[in-house]
């Protein structure tokens, strides 16, 4: 795809502003009705999906140039996909999330990428990882764990730790706990260690398509060599990349998030949770596990018109609108923990508010990223939760950092941590 391929959509965007709000049927209050962090923070139309369609059209037609403001408009999109869900309440022939990704790709390809993002890419090229730690230490988090170590050993089931867990000590206990739970349930897993590459998902969302492709091919090659049939990850970004972005490149491995595996193991009796965790918690749906965590359905086709002017596709085009994301598994797991009460925030499941860490925003616009996280924390507090639980290390870090920056208190957990407490 190229940005030009979205020219028809730029004209067909109804300029209705549904993209600025959660699905209206789900609005429960004034306070938590907005969905798009960037237009909520910066306020100009330009920072919404409808505005980005207009900005992209203006650029394509040569009516404006790539100013500093235009770069900000493009790169403050977290690609959280909330606009995409709301748009598709009424529309079947627009893809606003796809369009803004193409806008970012184009800006990067034209040399208008952000310095903060380029630094990440440079780190990857120099054998570093996004967290600025040497790649050779990538498997250290699993030292002492009973895991297979491809390529010397074959591993049908692979645990992909991801960049956060590989290099950040605060996230490593969760990764270790995940592996220990899987082992306790009798699941034999391997890790790639220093053969594991960044999934590339975050670079993709920053506009670095080529870098993403390089990393994806590296991972797919390593999986093939190790005989991997199933990849399990605790990272929502990794999950989305493997589930949605790798299949068009030829990947055929089964992709599971840890919460899906835990849900299955608990239901089938492979894991029994006995210890009470007396706590009221709320669950934050990571964008890339929830609304963007839908199964990938291949499609190649063309637009056609029926009934004169109804725009449809030949063959029928699969619809990704957040309907079939991973929402129930994490909630099932939480509900199976003795003593734990799960309460829901107003914005939940496919219309969840983003944590603020996505799309390279955390790296380039930290103040905005922190504000976005703080909005979610306020929502969690408003629903009476003592703790905010998620299933993505990037979300959890952004919440913790926002709390620290603002001097606020709230417990942040990964689901795996709570299951480990309850086992």
């Amino acid at each position, binding site marked *: 795809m190229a940005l030009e391929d979205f020219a028809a959509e730029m004209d067909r965007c109804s300029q209705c502003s549904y993209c600025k709000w959660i699905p*209206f049927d789900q609005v429960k209050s004034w306070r938590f009705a907005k969905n798009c962090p960037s237009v909520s923070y910066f306020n100009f139309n330009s920072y919404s999906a409808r505005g980005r369609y207009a*900005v992209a059209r203006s650029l394509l037609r040569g009516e*404006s140039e790539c100013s500093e403001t235009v770069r900000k408009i493009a790169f403050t999109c977290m690609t959280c996909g909330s606009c995409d869900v709301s748009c598709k309440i009424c529309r079947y022939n627009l893809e606003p999330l796809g369009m803004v990704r193409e806008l970012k790709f184009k800006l990067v390809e034209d040399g208008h990428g952000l310095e903060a993002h380029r630094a990440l890419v440079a780190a990857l090229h120099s054998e570093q990882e996004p967290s600025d730690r040497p790649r050779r230490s990538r498997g250290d988090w699993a030292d002492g764990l009973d895991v297979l170590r491809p390529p010397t050993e074959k591993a049908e089931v692979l645990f992909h730790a991801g960049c956060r867990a590989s290099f950040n000590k605060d996230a490593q206990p969760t990764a270790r706990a995940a592996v220990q739970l899987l082992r306790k349930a009798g699941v034999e897993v391997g890790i790639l260690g220093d053969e594991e590459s960044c999934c590339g998902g975050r670079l993709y969302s920053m506009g670095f398509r080529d870098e993403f492709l390089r990393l994806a091919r590296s991972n797919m090659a390593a999986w093939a060599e190790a005989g991997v049939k199933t990849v399990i990850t605790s990272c929502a970004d990794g999950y989305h990349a493997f589930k949605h972005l790798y299949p068009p490149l030829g990947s055929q491995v089964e992709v599971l998030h840890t919460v899906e595996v835990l849900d299955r193991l608990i239901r089938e009796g492979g894991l029994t949770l006995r210890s009470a965790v007396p706590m009221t918690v709320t669950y934050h749906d990571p964008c890339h596990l929830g609304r963007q965590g839908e199964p990938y359905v291949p499609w190649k086709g063309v637009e056609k018109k029926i009934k004169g002017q109804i725009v449809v596709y030949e063959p029928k085009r699969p619809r990704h609108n957040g309907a079939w994301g991973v929402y129930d598994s994490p909630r099932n797991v939480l509900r199976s923990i003795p003593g734990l009460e799960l309460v829901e925030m107003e914005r939940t499941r496919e219309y969840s508010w983003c944590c603020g860490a996505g799309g390279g925003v955390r790296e380039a616009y930290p103040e905005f990223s922190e504000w976005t996280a703080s909005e979610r924390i306020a929502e969690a507090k408003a629903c009476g939760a003592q703790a905010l639980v998620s299933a993505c290390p990037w979300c959890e870090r952004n919440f913790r950092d926002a709390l620290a920056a603002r001097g606020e208190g709230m417990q942040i957990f990964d689901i795996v941590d709570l299951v480990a407490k309850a086992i």
Partner: protein
Amino acid sequence: MTLPSRVYRDLEDIVGPENISDDPAVLDSYRYSLAHTAIHLGPYYDTFTPRGAAVLLPGTTQEVQAIVQLCNQHRIKFKASSTFWSAQGYPSEDDTLQLDMRRMDRILEIDEKNMFAVVEPGVIGATLQAEAMKVGLNAHLPGSGCSCSILATATSYFGSGPSNLYGGWQYDNLLGMEWVLPTGDLFRTGSLGSNCGWFCGEGPGPSMKGAARGFLGAKGAMGVHTKCAVKLFAWPGPQTLPVEGIVPAYRTPLPRNFRAYTVAFPTWKAWADAAYLIWETGIGYLAHRQYVMFGRDLKFAMVKILTDPTKTLGDLEEILEDPQVQRVTEESKRDFQIVLAGMTPRDIEWQEAAFDQILARTGGWKVEAMNEPEINQWMLLYLIRLGHKNLNLVFGGSYDGAFGLVGVPDYGTSHAEEAAEFKKTWEQRGAVVQAGGDCMMGPIGGMGGGGTCLWENFTCFDPHDRESTDGTREFFDACTQLGLERGWGVGMEKWNAQARGPDGRTTPKTERDRIHLSSPQPAAFRYQHKIREALNPNNLGDAYYETLED
């Protein structure tokens, strides 16, 4: 135009550097495509409203006043818009400052006892309704949907919607108002003007509602309305709508004191008789001829798609082949949707009995297939929240209304079939969606006049397809011609032609004068001219506040 740097700096001092922009790309996100839908004068392919001189996001009434005073000082035109529904919210003249009222979005008060809310421009229908429901009240939502500004629909347009039956047209609901006049002075109308609170639009205090709104609403052309109070209505449902289902097929279970039906009638006369009887009997909470916006031939198939999250428009042709769908489509030709809400168990029993009698007397029937629980619960949520209103645009991205017959039920029903047949013949040419001709959507039983109805024949087209937009415009011209020949008057497809021309800019004065002079009461526009001279001496608005010089 590039604003003189001194003026830009002065504006920046008022709103802060983060709330002003003259970046060309930002300005282009505040232009409206007339190929999309111009409500109601086009469409015109590849034509946009003019690029503004700058966009500002004021945060307070004081900031708005300061901006307007500066505009007067430098003779710069300005245009305020809250939620940007349709071309009316955008500048129609070059070198205009666009005020985006989004930051002024607070619900300042919900007076439960006196049943009104005080809102700023950026408050949308969905959020006001959600907050009102918590205290047993509801807001009347405009037909443009709950994404739209409540203040704008009360001050700047006429605000018709499914709750007309119970909540009136929104202009009826406007109470006290805070108004930054085009000179920058602050004016408070109704009881607010006498420091008596917001409860009344007329007094004690200056009764300026008519002057402020003008013909069909001020449409951002006469200063900036910065706060207003609107009436709220009883809500006998839950404090929060319990929503079930998979996106986008959300639905809400019917409370025990609610009934929701799609009904149909053997003739248009029977349809009109039922509308009168509903009005006279005083039953009903929401009523709209809603599904027909997809078209007589497509509506049931579309309802099937919209209530099934696995379906898309790509399934439409196959669904239309289903004999059951064809039977229901035929059965529900002359239909509308209605929601009854009882304030007490006895009330709903009585309303239901009365409604059954109305159906019996008129020969109407409940359309069984459309009243299946999943469809009914979806319809209930749809009509209460109006959160799927932009299904108007589902087919190709654009629609506009043709004809727009407003009047008592008999008036519309007398002409509905002829207008539908006329459209059907045009549909065969291919420029607009072939929907069955009859796409006459609108409310049943607005207050006043024995229950007015509005018949807007939805015409869907593709804004990216020049043949489609050109063909649609030809059709609209033909509608206007037919309306004049048949004595229906100019339809809503041209309602704003006097204010905005085909190039997206203000219609030349000679043309505006010609249109106003040919109207039934030119004096109304002369009166508005006097008002504009008094309140807007530097003429810094646009022609949406319609005037005619002596």
